[in-house]
């Protein structure tokens, strides 16, 4: 195969496999998973071959500048490689997890179709082609969520509406960008951020960060955590949507537009990132469900990436991309452990779990590695990417640094709580599992977890591997200004701050457990702190859900529009009919048969004529 064929195969193979999977009955589950494994394995293999290749290919498509144009460069090859890896891990994991699930057929099919579209979106070199694949993901997203619980279609609709609306903004942004730049080819666009281009920038960024699950486009993710099949969570919100969203954000900030480090665009992105970090992690802190807690972290972590890229300084951008990879690793690993717990213990409700560490030692070990990585404990991978982001954030403003470090504190605190509540403490899971003892998950589920946990360690200790080979080539020499960001971070102050904060989280947990007597309630002193308590109560009732607020607003507008329409209708149905009737009756009254009246009419008419003639 030549380069072009193998690149197109990345779209075509999952596409064909996805359509094919729709036709394999659930009785042939082995065939289903074999097909998914084959397709993801081949795609992963191709992404490895394609790595470090560069080329652009274009054929006419819908005309008017809309070409089927694809580009392979370091950045897209790097994201493709990551996506391919996660798809393969998920396929291995699903081969056991989806056993006896009646939605297996649809899940595999939608998963593979999604993979095709994700690959397409990453390869696209034409903004409309990108939008085509990007927005096409809505269909599989809707399908993947709605096959979960009986009521999951409500969450699916919510996700569809939130992302659909942001995608429409992206659509306008792409139109505007194409208009200003005079071309839709991404590799040919490089705009300064002046007034119209600034609007295009904002619209494109809305599309990118909404896909990655940033606030205020996040609120479907916690709902989906409960309703959607778990592997969906491990693949989409945890890994692929981050990869896709941050990939496009990087393209926007570094290539499509000339974002300056000191401009308004960077400040806006950093603010959005910082707010997302803090608010989402505060919500994660109080969750009492394994999956839902993780889902809020999936939102919170994207804040770090946006903050990092928003700084506009090389350390921040490298840190943001590195954090993107790291987050995809440990977050999918965490969701995999959540799936193992769900399958083996029968519940993810933390109130029913506890003491699983003995029964599921390997899962627990993987959980520990992923949890310390996400908390940023040295020398795991999350530590290094966070340090880079801290460094860049501090350069751009202390407030951003404080938000980031505060986020780390709560992240650590909530994972201490989660680990303690699920894996340590009193063993009460047999009750949740219908009286059966809990055993370790089967090996096809453990294998992806173990591999990913291992990668978390490798990407930490040998962080020059990903930074030197994956990220820095993707950004290019020019941007990096000759620096390299591999190795152990030299800023002693920042490192010591991190250590202090982590120790603080540990102390906080210890105090919380001592005060409340249980791991689950370790953060109750924060949850029920005066002031916070009321806010939390409101948030639990979804008073602050931007989706619900938006729907209410839409409903008001719609009601006004409805009555405007009724008013117009009244004009036709009542007013014009009434006017015609009234006119007719008035005229009829004039025709009363009286000779005198008619004479009077004639006189008036004659007078009018004379007046007109003499005028």
């Amino acid at each position: 195969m030549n380069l072009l064929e193998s690149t197109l195969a990345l779209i075509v193979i999952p596409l064909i496999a996805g359509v094919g999977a729709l036709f394999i009955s659930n009785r042939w589950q082995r065939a289903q998973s074999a097909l998914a494994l084959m397709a993801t394995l081949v795609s992963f293999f191709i992404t490895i071959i394609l790595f470090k290749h560069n080329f652009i290919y274009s054929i006419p498509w819908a005309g008017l500048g809309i070409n089927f144009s694809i580009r392979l460069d370091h950045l897209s090859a790097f994201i493709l490689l990551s996506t391919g890896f996660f798809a393969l891990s998920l396929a291995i994991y699903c081969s056991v997890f989806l056993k006896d699930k009646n939605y297996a057929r649809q899940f595999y099919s939608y998963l593979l179709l999604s993979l095709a579209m994700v690959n397409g979106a990453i390869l696209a070199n034409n903004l409309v082609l990108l939008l085509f694949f990007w927005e096409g993901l809505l269909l599989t997203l809707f399908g993947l969520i709605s096959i979960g619980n009986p009521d999951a279609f409500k969450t699916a609709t919510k996700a569809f509406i939130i992302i659909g609306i942001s995608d429409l903004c992206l659509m306008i942004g792409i139109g505007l960008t194409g208009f200003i730049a005079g071309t839709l080819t991404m590799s040919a666009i490089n705009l300064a951020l002046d007034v119209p281009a600034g609007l295009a920038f904002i619209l494109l960024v809305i599309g990118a960060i909404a896909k990655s699950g940033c606030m205020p486009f996040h609120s479907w993710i916690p709902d989906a955590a409960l309703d959607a099949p778990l592997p969906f969570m491990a693949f989409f919100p945890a890994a692929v949507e981050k990869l896709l969203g941050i990939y496009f954000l990087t393209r926007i900030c570094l290539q499509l537009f000339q974002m300056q480090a000191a401009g308004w665009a960077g400040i806006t992105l950093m603010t959005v990132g910082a707010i997302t970090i803090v608010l989402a992690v505060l919500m994660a802190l109080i969750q009492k469900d394994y999956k839902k807690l993780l889902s809020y972290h999936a939102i919170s972590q994207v804040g770090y990436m946006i903050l990092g890229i928003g700084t506009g300084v090389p350390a921040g951008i490298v840190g943001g991309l590195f954090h993107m990879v790291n987050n995809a690793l440990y977050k999918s690993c965490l969701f995999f452990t959540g799936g193992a717990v769900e399958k083996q213990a029968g519940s993810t409700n933390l109130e029913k779990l506890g003491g699983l560490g003995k029964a599921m030692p390997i899962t627990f070990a993987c959980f520990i590695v992923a949890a310390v990585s996400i908390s940023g404990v040295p020398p795991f991978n999350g530590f290094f990417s966070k340090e880079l982001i801290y460094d860049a954030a501090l350069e751009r403003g202390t407030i951003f640094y404080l938000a980031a470090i505060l986020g780390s504190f709560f992240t650590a605190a909530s994972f201490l709580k989660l680990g303690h509540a699920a894996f340590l403490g009193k063993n009460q899971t047999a009750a949740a599992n219908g009286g059966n003892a809990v055993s370790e998950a089967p090996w096809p589920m453990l294998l992806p977890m173990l591999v990913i946990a291992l990668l978390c360690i490798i990407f930490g200790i040998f962080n020059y591997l990903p930074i030197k080979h994956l990220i820095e080539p993707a950004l290019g020499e020019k941007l990096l200004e000759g620096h390299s960001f591999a190795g152990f971070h030299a800023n002693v102050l920042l490192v010591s701050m991190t250590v202090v904060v982590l120790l603080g989280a540990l102390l906080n947990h210890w105090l919380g457990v001592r005060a409340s007597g249980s791991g689950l309630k370790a953060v109750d002193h924060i949850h029920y702190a005066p002031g916070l308590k009321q806010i939390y109560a409101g948030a639990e009732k979804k008073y602050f859900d931007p989706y619900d607020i938006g729907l209410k607003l839409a409903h008001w507008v719609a009601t006004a529009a409805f009555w405007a329409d009724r008013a117009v209708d009244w004009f036709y149905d009542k007013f014009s009919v009434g006017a015609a009737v009234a006119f007719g009756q008035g005229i009829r009254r004039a025709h009363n048969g009286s000779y005198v009246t008619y004479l009077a009419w004639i006189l008036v008419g004659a007078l009018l004529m004379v007046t007109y003639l003499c005028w």
Partner: protein
Amino acid sequence: MKSNWLVWLIIFTPIVGAFLLPILGNFSKILRNWFALVLALVSFILSLILLPSALSGQFATIQRLLPLGFNFTFCADGLAVFMALVSSFISAIIIFYSFDYIDHYENQNEYYCMVLLFMGSMMGLVYSGNLIFLYVFWEITALTSWRLIGFFRDKEYVIKADKAFLVTVFGALLMLVGFMLLAQQCGSFDLSTIKEALKTQPLSGLAVLLILAGIFSKSATLPFQTWLPDAGVAPSPVTALLHAAVLVKIGVYVFARLFIVVMPLSQFWHVVVPAIAGLSALIAAGAALIDTNLKRIIAFSTISQIGFIFLGLACGNVIGVTGALLYILMHGLAKGGLFLCAGIVEQNTHSKDITKMGGLIKTMPWTAMAFLFCAFSIMGIPPLGGFFAKFMVMTGSVYSQPLYITLLFLCSAFFTILYLFRVFNLVFLGNNLIGPVKEGSKLMVACVVLLAVLSFSGGLLIKYPADVARTVAQQMLGTVK
């Protein structure tokens, strides 16, 4: 030229055939049904034959000079052929669907006669190159739609039909006055003569206003929109015909014909028309979110989507006009699908109230999936065809309109997602509130699935419709290379 005969055949096969149908119906229902389908297909296939020459710029024309400027002129240019293809194709599918749908009701002979007459006059309208003949066919469609909307003879239904007739005819009379003003200024009702004359003289604003009133009343745009939701009392294939294939597309077509091809509008109207269309789109979209009658909601959706087509046409640039033409095609396919699905739901549940349905996907999965995919196309979700249409229209608007117009339409696009999902969730998902409901007949389901598949493949194979639409748009704007 031989192909001139084709134009004759395209127009008069369905019109003459329409009057044969009732006679045929007295002998055999099956024969009548298939003959009706064949008549529609004749128009479609012959238009397809005309397409290559129309795209290459060699138009088949018929011209018989008559006194007083009432020239008998027909011209098959790109725009006419494109519209004829879309209309006749969707009409053919709707007629096929009617085989089963209308089978339960009385007055079938009248139904088929009116539908074919309706479609035939649409053919006459799109091909005519003279304002008077355009007006004549325009009024024939008003008459037939009046009869079809009042197909069920209940009194309240007939009142709604009267309303549709009165509003559209009122608009048409205003338009006729506008035509007269034009003829007075240019000395002829012939479009080519008017086009030449207006190159040197300014266009009268009053004439534009009057003609716009006619167009907006036919295309159910603010402030003439309310007859269209009321027309939902008609049988579902008829509403599909009104919304997707024939009636509301007439106004859009005449706008494209007169105000792009013959007499380009001044800058003032390029802002006013999108503003009215945008307001109309938003109000209708809002109303669709509140109403609870299935067919009224889809009708409001049509009003809203027609606004997008006007926007694309009023942009006056190639991408906007191409988008508008694609929109006519894609919206026709998808909206036809939605109405035909609604027909299946309505016929099998005997209800139109979406708050009293639910869970129908379990028993009618095919209809539900067809509905969902048609809805996706109207929302503009790739890879369905509606995506490209919406993208091009919106891009055209970004190019040429003030930003607030684009944002106004963006709001309507948001609402489109909201109300279509509301309908889908209430009708097909959730708890069943209506009891056991069976799937529609095979033939009807086949029709809706066909429309959904066409919406889908229209997006995947966008190159072909887009190439045709772009060539037509360039022809219309006079920018053919």
